[in-house]
């Protein structure tokens, strides 16, 4: 009996010791010197970014460091050569002919040269109908690809405005693509590298490890020995891991924990506008409110909402961004404030409640307040279009949108315009395409080439023009811009279109969602990047003093 009791006790003790004992006595462990650990909330599905599951930001953070690009976006969203020897040149306008060369010292980690054949093999893989390629847009417009050693000449069937971004992406190795099933290529690792880092291991669900590519000569060699990506989807855990130095760098979504981290001297928080922008769209179709087809009503709405207040309430006052200057109010539907072509066309619609009232009164509207009044309950009625009371469609459960709505609703109410909330889970998936709404608030996800495809959003019959907005002058300019390879000519066309849109006000740009990059001060060289190139765009320059 006693013996059994002792055994039972020993078993209990062992079980407890197995879990608790060793851990309590374990030595603290840190990432070794020369290693930086990046925490990210999403794990890649594959490392092949040619196919649909690889078309994700988290994938590009890794692949861009291993499979170098012809050119990459810098922190100002400008393409700069990486494997290309210089900027690609237009050698002929009709037909559009582009030529570029790959750097003489660009080579794969297995010793082979990176040549034009690799670029052509990538092109062919994209055009191969057997593979689940995300998009062949632009690629289908290529008529021929001629390769001579490291020089590639591309001839397009028709002008393609976004040619530079199209041809500047990741270059895949021809000798790996040959005979491969591209759908299943690089599902678990990358066996060759042309970038500053090479792939080492991927412990699915936990971490992915890159190591310095000692054979990389086409640019700055990596300063770090290793770069480790740790995947932590829970935001609270991500921040705890950052505080406890389990990770040193992260790019979180806007979260209140950022405010606390910002106060901590151990970290440096970078923030800035990105390409995702929130906006209010007006419905011009038959199911929308008749008043929204009147320009003066849309202009009144634009002047009646204080967009600075919205920006401040969402990001500045909570302390997410250090100052309002870091996140300017968006004044364009086509460009973002950090882009060279950005012009503040919508700045003319500054917040002015008295102007709203006088504009509506000038156009024969009646029943509204004489002066702006917070407690106002009088709503304007305008000739032929009825009361200015609009259904406001947006997603349910999004706190930022709910707060934006509350601010806009209160401000417009005080000038006699009513917003009725229509928050729904299917606001974007079903209600938005149905066009059965008056005002919709949502985010457009864009990138550096979005301006080129603005026709889809604002052109007559554009694929994503859910507003049914149609102004022939705007549409023609946007349509033409899509097929204008010359940057200056295209910029002029887009400015021309946006100048008209700023008067038409089919949509109100609200704010650009800020991006965040947080790093320990022991890690230097971090620089936030608003494009899909992501925070690791210059990871070869990162250093750590840990």
């Amino acid at each position: 009996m006693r013996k059994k009791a002792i055994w039972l006790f020993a078993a209990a003790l062992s079980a407890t010791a197995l879990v608790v004992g060793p851990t309590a006595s374990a030595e603290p462990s840190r990432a070794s010197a020369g290693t930086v650990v990046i925490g990210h909330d999403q794990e890649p599905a594959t490392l092949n970014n040619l196919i649909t599951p690889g078309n994700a930001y988290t994938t590009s953070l890794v692949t861009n460091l291993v499979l170098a690009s012809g050119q990459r976006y810098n922190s100002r969203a400008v393409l700069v050569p990486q494997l290309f020897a210089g900027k690609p040149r237009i050698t002929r306008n009709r037909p559009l002919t582009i030529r570029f060369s790959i750097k003489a010292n660009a080579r794969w980690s297995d010793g082979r040269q990176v040549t034009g054949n690799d670029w052509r093999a990538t092109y062919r893989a994209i055009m191969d109908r057997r593979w689940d390629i995300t998009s062949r847009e632009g690629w289908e417009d290529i008529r021929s690809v001629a390769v001579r050693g490291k020089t590639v000449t591309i001839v397009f069937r028709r002008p393609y405005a976004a040619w530079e971004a199209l041809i500047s992406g990741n270059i895949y190795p021809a000798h790996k693509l040959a005979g491969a099933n591209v759908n299943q290529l690089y599902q678990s690792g990358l066996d060759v590298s042309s970038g500053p880092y090479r792939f080492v291991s991927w412990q699915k669900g936990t971490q992915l490890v890159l190591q310095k590519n000692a054979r990389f000569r086409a640019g700055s060699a990596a300063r770090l020995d290793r770069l480790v990506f740790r995947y932590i989807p829970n935001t609270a855990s991500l921040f705890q891991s950052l505080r406890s130095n389990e990770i040193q760098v992260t790019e979180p979504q806007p979260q209140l924990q950022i405010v606390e981290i910002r106060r901590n001297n151990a970290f440096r928080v970078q923030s800035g506008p990105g390409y995702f922008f929130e906006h209010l769209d007006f419905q011009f179709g038959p199911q929308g409110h008749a008043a929204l087809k009147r320009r003066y009503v849309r202009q009144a709405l634009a002047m009646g909402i204080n967009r600075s207040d919205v920006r401040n309430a969402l990001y500045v006052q909570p302390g997410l961004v250090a100052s309002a200057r870091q996140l300017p109010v968006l004044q364009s539907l086509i460009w973002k404030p950090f882009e060279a072509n950005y012009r503040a066309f919508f700045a003319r619609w500054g917040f002015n409640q008295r102007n709203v009232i006088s504009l509506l009164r000038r156009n024969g509207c009646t029943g509204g307040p004489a002066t702006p009044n917070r407690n106002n309950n009088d709503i304007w009625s305008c000739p032929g279009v009825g009361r200015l009371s609009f259904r406001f469609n947006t997603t349910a459960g999004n706190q930022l949108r709910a707060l934006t709505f509350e601010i806009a609703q209160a401000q417009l109410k005080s000038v006699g315009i009513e917003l009725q909330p229509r928050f729904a889970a299917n606001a974007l998936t079903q209600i938005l395409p149905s066009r059965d709404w008056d005002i919709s608030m949502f985010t457009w996800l864009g990138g550096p080439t979005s301006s080129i495809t603005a026709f889809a959003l604002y052109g007559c019959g554009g694929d994503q023009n859910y507003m049914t907005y149609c102004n022939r002058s705007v549409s023609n300019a946007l349509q033409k811009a899509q097929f204008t390879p010359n940057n200056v000519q295209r910029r002029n066309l887009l400015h021309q279109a946006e100048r008209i849109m700023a008067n038409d006000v089919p949509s109100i740009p609200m704010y650009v969602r800020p991006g965040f990059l947080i790093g320990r001060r022991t890690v230097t060289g971090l620089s936030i990047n608003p494009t899909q190139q992501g925070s690791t765009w210059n990871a070869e320059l990162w250093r750590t003093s840990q």
Partner: protein
Amino acid sequence: MLTYIIRRLLYSVVVLLVASFLIFTFVTVSGDPLSFLKMSPGVSQETIANITERKHLDDPIIVRYGYWLRDAVTDQFGTTIIGERKIMPDIQRVMGHTLQLIIAAELLAITLAISIGVYSALRQYSVFDYLATTFSFLGLATPVFWLALMLQVLFVNVYLWWDIRIFYTANLSGVDPGGGIDFVLDRAQHLALPVIVLSIANIATYSRYMRGAMLEVINSDYVRTARAKGLKERRVIMRHAFRNALIPLTTVVALNFGALIGGVVVTETVFALDGMGFYFINALNSGDPYPVMAWLMIVSTGVIVFNLLADITYGILDPRVRHD
């Protein structure tokens, strides 16, 4: 007993077949797996058409079920819809991680719960008993996600204050876990917090069961008889009472273990543990129904198997119970 087991196994096959059809039907009708792709601007229509054809997404549900069942049986659940990724290797990996977590948590919970339950019963209405009862209800009432976050905060602060890394707050292993004993230590440091979180609710449940069962047994006639025969109290408790009091707990543990096979979604998500629950959430987020279906089938199988095991164990521990 053997006949009973065979009969139960045959029933289980039928149950699984019915479950597979229900799982397939409900998951399939819940949405279009390609809706995300279809809504993404620029995604090639050819790609969508290729996937639709390859995965027979245009066929009637019953036909698709046939294809899926074939893949499930002959090709270990086949591949994901988007990306053609083999499903089974991923499930095997996450299942291993979940087993590590729940075995450690169950061992800890059972050991402590039995000790607490037995002692509470023997010292009924003592200070210890009241404390154990209070903490049990507290353990049951504490939300798992809150407890998990509090433990993370606590041990992060321990690290920040004293520069001692006792436990890690996320993931299954360190950047350099090493091998041998270093690997075991590293794994233990990563698993400790989720194990504690998972154990606390189980300790609370199991200790209440154990206390109740023990109280029932020590007040039964045969225990009174044992005492009347002049047996030492220790022998009465350990030999006659304790063993019989374990029977209900065994059933509860076996059933609970079956349910835990599906992973502990909240715990694994908070601690970023690459386990079954974490896998399920990721599969749901990806919108790909095939990994979700594979997961549901495996969890269903686990529940059925552990139910069977619970019944068999019950019969072995309590000779009065006979399965005919």
